[in-house]
């Protein structure tokens, strides 16, 4: 059965630009990334966008599809198109480099500002720390560890849009997984980062991060846990300002 082609609007330009319309053949099991790739290969080779694995692991292909941030390689057109139309834009809350490619630098800089880097407490000469999979801390870390840093939560977050200093859901979720890693030696600086102006206490708990996370993680819960832990640590006088 020959289907009506998709009517696709794609953002062209940088921070300023315009949507351009393309007609793309409709296929079975077609993903939004397939649509963008079709435009690149068959209509306009100057279209810029980012992808790598195409199987939902690398987190590089996130875009705004019909006004919602999504991972495009795992988003079927049939589930998101409105009457055969698609509007594809770069992720919100990030500078646009060109077309659908955003500059992820602020996202990863905030990841580091949240002390999202493992700080080893042992050397290679020490014995391996045994960590049981069913320990409460490990279970809490596991709940957030599968983040692929796609930036969907960051693009969906109202607080990120309103507050330039806010570290964002992914960075704080990462911090929470490390807080629960007892091999880590950087807990106080991490809690200080979480307790600072753009940290976890700026979160309004709108839960858009949780709503849109393609990995079905719950950054809002991680941030709420960070709020509680940093507050208790502060009230006990163990969180130097």
């Amino acid at each position, binding site marked *: 059965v020959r289907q009506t082609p998709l009517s696709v609007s794609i953002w062209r330009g940088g921070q300023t630009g315009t949507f351009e319309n393309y007609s793309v053949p409709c296929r079975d099991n077609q993903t939004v990334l397939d649509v963008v790739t079709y435009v690149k290969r068959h209509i306009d080779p100057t279209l810029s966008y980012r992808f790598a694995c195409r199987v939902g692991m690398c987190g590089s292909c996130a875009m705004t599809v019909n006004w919602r941030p999504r991972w495009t390689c795992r988003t079927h057109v049939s589930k998101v198109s409105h009457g055969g139309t698609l509007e594809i834009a770069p992720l919100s809350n990030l500078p646009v480099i060109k077309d659908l490619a955003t500059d992820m630098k602020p996202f990863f800089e905030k990841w580091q500002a949240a002390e999202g880097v493992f700080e080893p407490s042992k050397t290679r000469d020490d014995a391996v720390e045994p960590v049981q999979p069913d320990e409460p801390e490990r279970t809490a870390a596991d709940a957030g560890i599968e983040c692929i840093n796609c930036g969907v939560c960051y693009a969906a977050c109202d607080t990120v849009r309103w*507050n330039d200093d806010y570290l964002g859901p992914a960075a704080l979720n990462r911090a929470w997984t490390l807080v629960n890693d007892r091999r880590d030696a950087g807990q106080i600086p991490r809690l200080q980062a979480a307790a600072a102006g753009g940290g976890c206490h700026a979160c309004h708990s709108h839960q858009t991060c949780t709503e849109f996370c393609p990995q079905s993680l719950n950054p809002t819960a991680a941030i709420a846990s960070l709020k509680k832990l940093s507050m208790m640590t502060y009230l006990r006088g163990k969180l130097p300002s």
Partner: protein
Amino acid sequence: MNIRLYIWQRGTAALLAPMVLVHLAVIFYATRQGLSAAEILGRTRGSLTWGSFYGAFVVAAAIHAAIGIGNILSEWTPMGDKTARGLSLWFGLLLFVVGMRAVFAVVSG
């Protein structure tokens, strides 16, 4: 919002929640009983209890509202965080002065 402001805002909210309920109960009682202004003032004047209750209410409300207004100004207007906090501090002081003036008016004399 940093952790200090967070604790002050949530702490004052925890204080205000039961106080608002008491305040609403007082309003309902006064209106249902048909108390006149003179009768209300007769009960509040010289009362350390009502003076303390509404004094604490005003302090908590001034702190809570100032922090909230500061957040809104900082997030929803182009002004910087410093300007927003400065303006909200003045707003909190205004609430404190106006509120304490009202408390003074009903408990003094």
